[in-house]
């Protein structure tokens, strides 16, 4: 036992001694992080793992392209990717490493709202810009001093738009079914308000995520005979719910967010199950070169909304740094709105934008996920919404609002 203690106590003392010695030299350590380093923090394992890999790749491809075209501010961009494991505790440890070891000035792609909220204070305290796709309303209300920008329309706006759509399609009875999320209850409240205004019924059910069947939940929701059901979950549980609703013989309409009824879901389910299902999303700019870039670099026809967004995150980080002449988090924060909106030349990819900026011009970036304009708290504004309907396993445009 004493051996152990002797072994242990000096170790701790040595650590503390070493720590004090190192305290004197933080400047040297800082200097090591001089090259431009950006980080992605997407869910590569855990329940968000269906989204994270291509989100990461979409961002990585932007940096590769910029490096090949000569880099940013005359330097190569280093990309460091960490995994959130879809767990806030693991994500906090990962972002610590990104900030303190790699010295990133930008973190791209946090997905789950709980993870964004967990890592956000570390970002703003350390002057690191955080780009996120999380939808929970509370995120941009954090005291983030401008260090958060999100490209996902907040959940209130999304639900209102979709509820309006359901009413325009003359729904006579609405229903909402989804797992417990930060926006489950607010979604239900919004839809219930809209349904009441229209004098129709509205049924809702919050289920437990990660189950392999929702038959009884579907039975419960179908009791009220809705003719339009909104899905509130993500890809994995939406597959199960879509199957269960279809098998129950439901003949009405269904609408789900495009990130939940996404290409992998359409791939995994037989076409008849998803026939006629509506999806909606902040309208991607399908004709833009940004969208084409994401399509080409990921090798897909249909771009996942989240991957389109991380492509935009990466591009905006590059352009903001170029406009500011400085790749620090603070400089990118301050320059973000000068390149994302305003009177500059409309550009939709990093290389073109860099050229304009190099020539002394101004740019207004409009990306793969939409126009990318931000209000003062970092929420996206002026988003158009695109409704699509699935037929034969592929979505086609239905309506833009």
């Amino acid at each position, binding site marked *: *036992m*004493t051996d*152990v*203690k002797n072994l*242990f106590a000096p170790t*701790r003392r040595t650590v503390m001694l070493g*720590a004090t010695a*190192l*305290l004197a030299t*933080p400047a040297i*350590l800082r200097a*090591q992080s001089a090259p431009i380093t950006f980080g*992605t923090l997407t869910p*590569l*394992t855990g329940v968000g*793992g269906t989204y*994270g*890999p291509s989100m*990461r*790749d979409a961002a*990585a491809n932007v940096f590769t392209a910029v490096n090949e075209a000569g880099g940013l501010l005359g330097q190569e961009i280093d990309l*460091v*990717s*960490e*995994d959130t*494991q*879809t*767990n*806030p*505790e*693991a994500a*906090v*440890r*990962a972002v*610590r*490493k990104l*900030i*303190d*070891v790699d010295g990133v000035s930008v973190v791209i792609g946090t997905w*789950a*709202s*709980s*993870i964004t*909220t*967990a890592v*956000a*204070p*570390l970002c703003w*305290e*350390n002057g690191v810009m955080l780009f996120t796709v999380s939808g*929970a309303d*509370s995120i941009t209300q*954090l*005291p983030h001093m401008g260090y958060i920008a999100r490209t996902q329309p907040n959940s209130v706006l999304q639900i209102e738009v979709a509820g309006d759509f359901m009413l325009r399609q003359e729904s006579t009875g609405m229903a909402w079914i989804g797992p*417990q999320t*930060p926006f*489950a*209850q607010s979604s239900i409240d919004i839809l219930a308000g809209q349904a009441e205004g229209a004098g129709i019924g509205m049924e809702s059910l*919050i289920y*437990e995520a990660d189950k392999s069947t929702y038959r009884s939940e579907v039975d419960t929701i179908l009791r009220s005979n809705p003719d339009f059901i909104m899905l509130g979950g993500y890809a994995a549980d939406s597959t199960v719910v879509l199957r269960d609703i279809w098998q129950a013989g439901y003949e009405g309409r269904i609408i789900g967010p495009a990130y939940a009824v996404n290409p992998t879901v359409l791939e995994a389910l037989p076409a008849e199950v998803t026939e006629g299902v509506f999806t909606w999303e902040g309208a991607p700019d399908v004709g833009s070169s940004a969208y084409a870039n994401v399509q080409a670099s990921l090798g897909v026809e249909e771009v996942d909304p989240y991957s389109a967004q991380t492509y935009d995150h990466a591009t905006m980080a590059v352009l903001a740094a170029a406009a500011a002449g400085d790749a620090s988090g603070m400089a990118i924060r301050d320059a973000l709105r000068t390149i994302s909106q305003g009177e500059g030349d409309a550009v939709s990819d990093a290389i073109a934008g860099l050229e304009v900026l190099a020539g002394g011009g101004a740019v207004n970036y409009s990306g793969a996920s939409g126009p990318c304009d931000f209000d003062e708290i970092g929420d996206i504004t002026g988003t158009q919404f695109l409704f699509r309907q699935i037929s034969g396993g592929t979505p086609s445009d239905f309506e833009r609002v």
Partner: protein
Amino acid sequence: MLSWLFSVATFAGIYALLALGINVIWGMGGMINLGMAGFFALGAYASALATGAGALPIPIGLALAAVLAALAGGLLCRLTLRLRGDYLAIVTLGFSELIRLIAANEIWMTNGSDGISGIPGPWRAELSPFQFNMLSCALVTLAVLIVWAMTERLRRSPWGRALRAIRDDDTAAAVAGKPITRFKVQAFALGAAILGLAGAFYAHYTSYIAPDIFRPLITIYIFLALTAGGTGNSTGAVVGAIAVVAVLEGSRFLEGWVSVLGGVEKAALREIVIGVALIAIMQLRPRGLLPETPPGPFLKRKDT
């Protein structure tokens, strides 16, 4: 870099507290508690709510966290007293999932899956992030030392010896006149109190808690830590926790060696490395890096 080391050390400290708590319940008391994440959550929420909405000082939050977790632990232990280890493992696992479900669904109290943000940390506003990391590391290290000394002392006390006797053979201990129920409930409650305390430290350090944090993953890490370090032995618990955090964090640096792989493959490989490393440690040192030694009096040389 240095700031990162302090933060990793803080996490290691929190893991060490968790391992010490589990060590009291499992290592010393012989009761398995796969519901660790539940007590961790109870402590975190208790202190976050008390110091946030309740506006109480942080030390009171810490105390409340420990007391609440202890009460829950004592109660759970009382309910499950007759169960053998394997059953207890699964019941306690269910308990922690129940706590997580409550945290996610009782929005009026816990703010649901949005979680609670802006939990106060000691002098967080006045300090730079670097200084705050350093302070947190110092405070958590201090807490680990205190809990370590306390549990080591307990282990060598008559109470600890009786508990050990019950763990090894409860029939014999009962025959010898030991009040088994009381000992077990006390051990469980004490261990749970330490877990709750760790939760409170976590909440005040990271300033944010949400139900997702308390998935069983962290329980897995701590049991691996304790098994790797050596169960029944407080020093082993601390060493094991440090070893696990070293594996978890160190594996991030493997990334540079496998640059041909895509993001998912790297992430998967990292977790494979973590799992294999832990199994390897267990096989090479089945009794842990520091096996349990029969307890002698505290702070005296013991010849074996």
